[in-house]
């Protein structure tokens, strides 16, 4: 069994979704989470606050400094993610297809380096 991270990418300044579209999307994501749990695929999932809430910590000239703001000024940023168990990429992609439909945003699928049971 491998683990994959499904990252949800949101565009920076897209038009805001209509409230009823947003509500339907939240319902769909809840339903998907339930489906993943039933199937034993769900490991963890969560949504993130906007990247204006981000702080960055790094080592600079030997000392650790903290700065305001996201690390990269990107047009798209991660708005949330799932960590799932899946037999192979096809299984992970099947979940990702459901995820992109549910949360109305592109999903990036990446494998974790170490399978937990290897």
């Amino acid at each position, binding site marked *: 069994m*491998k683990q994959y991270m499904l990252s949800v990418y949101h565009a920076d300044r897209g038009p805001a979704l209509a409230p009823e579209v947003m509500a339907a999307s939240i319902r769909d994501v809840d339903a998907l989470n339930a489906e993943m749990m039933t199937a034993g695929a769900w490991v963890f999932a969560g949504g993130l606050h906007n990247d204006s809430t981000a702080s960055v910590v790094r080592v600079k000239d030997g000392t650790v400094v903290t700065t305001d703001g996201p690390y990269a000024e990107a047009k798209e940023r991660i708005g949330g993610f799932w960590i799932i168990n899946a*037999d*192979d*990429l*096809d299984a*992970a992609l099947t979940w990702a297809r459901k995820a992109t439909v549910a949360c109305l945003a592109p999903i990036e699928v990446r*494998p974790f*380096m170490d399978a937990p049971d290897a």
Partner: protein
Amino acid sequence: MRRVSDSEIERVFREEFGRAVAVLVRSFGDIDIAEEAVQEAFTVAVQRWPETGLPPSPAGWIITTARRRAIDRLRGDAARADRHAKAALMQAEGHPIDNRPVRDERLSLIFTCCHPALATEVQVALTLRLLGGLSTVEIARAFIVPEATMAQRIVRAKHKIRDAGIPYRVPASTELAGRLSAVLAVVYLIFNEGYVASSGERLGRSDLCAEAIRLGRILSELMPDEPEVLGLLALMLLIHSRQRSRTTAGGDLVLLDDQDRSTWDRSLIAEGQEIVRACLRRNQPGPYQIQAAISAVHSEAERASDTDWGQILQLYDQLLAVNPTPVVALNRVVALAQMRGATVALEAVDRLDFGEYYLFHAVRADLLSRVGRNEDARAAYDTAAALTSNAVERTFLMRARDALPG
């Protein structure tokens, strides 16, 4: 004892490389290990076979030798606590290969190589490398890419397959249609790259055509009940049958109408037509089968003037219905011009619009010249010539422009 020539070993290599790699990927669960082991087994064969003669089953010999060598090496690596080597070794021990005929795993391998999570150019390179046994150098040359770039492309792809867990299996029937069309697209892309090099001075690289046909034959053998697989093979055979007449000795392009039909390869035509007839009997048409049928109609005409354009136009109508692309619409216009004249065809072509496609302007230029609009034709030939990166095609278009009256 019979001597074994280099060309005989080369033939075994061509025929058996992909089969051996596919079996060993199943056995070790790792493409790199499989590929390296098979390569090594052939190196041993080149040294040994000229003395010992060809073994009774060359494929079996290669697979057994490759497997033994890989296990020896993995044992060494596993002893050095290489986790990856241990996993491959464990998998291999769970999949013993005995002396019975081994299962053909090439279909799993081709579906892995053509997985949609890999970019198209990566799918093409992997298929040629692993199924076709072409070297990285050969593939790089064929696609006019620096060798280092191609090597990196292949290495990255193999790592993605391993690390992302791209499965090694024939897709389930629910996904098969979509996944198969990606496989067929890769094979046809290889063929077309050989047919008209997308850039460069020489028009064709028929080695790639031959390789695509070989892949088409393997697919037809492994999936005899998929009509589009057969359709693609027939299409490639029929196009390839005209290879000798497509260019002059000097390398200039010759249009279908002007080709010397006596040089067409009769045996390829017969084989292609036979498959087309079998597809018609099966009556599950698809884009490749219809294109093959169109090509078969051309093949039947002894002279260009004997061509049954009515039947071709009908087939294009059918093709347009299942595959409504601008390119198909453009080809239909060519048939329409034959049936109903240049004026009608020109009206049809002007209803299409795809500005950057050189063939659109080339066809339009030809129709314009036929209705006597020579100035417009000249401009259209110029646009077409500016849009193609193939030197032979450009020369052809400039000649056609210069031959316009006035």
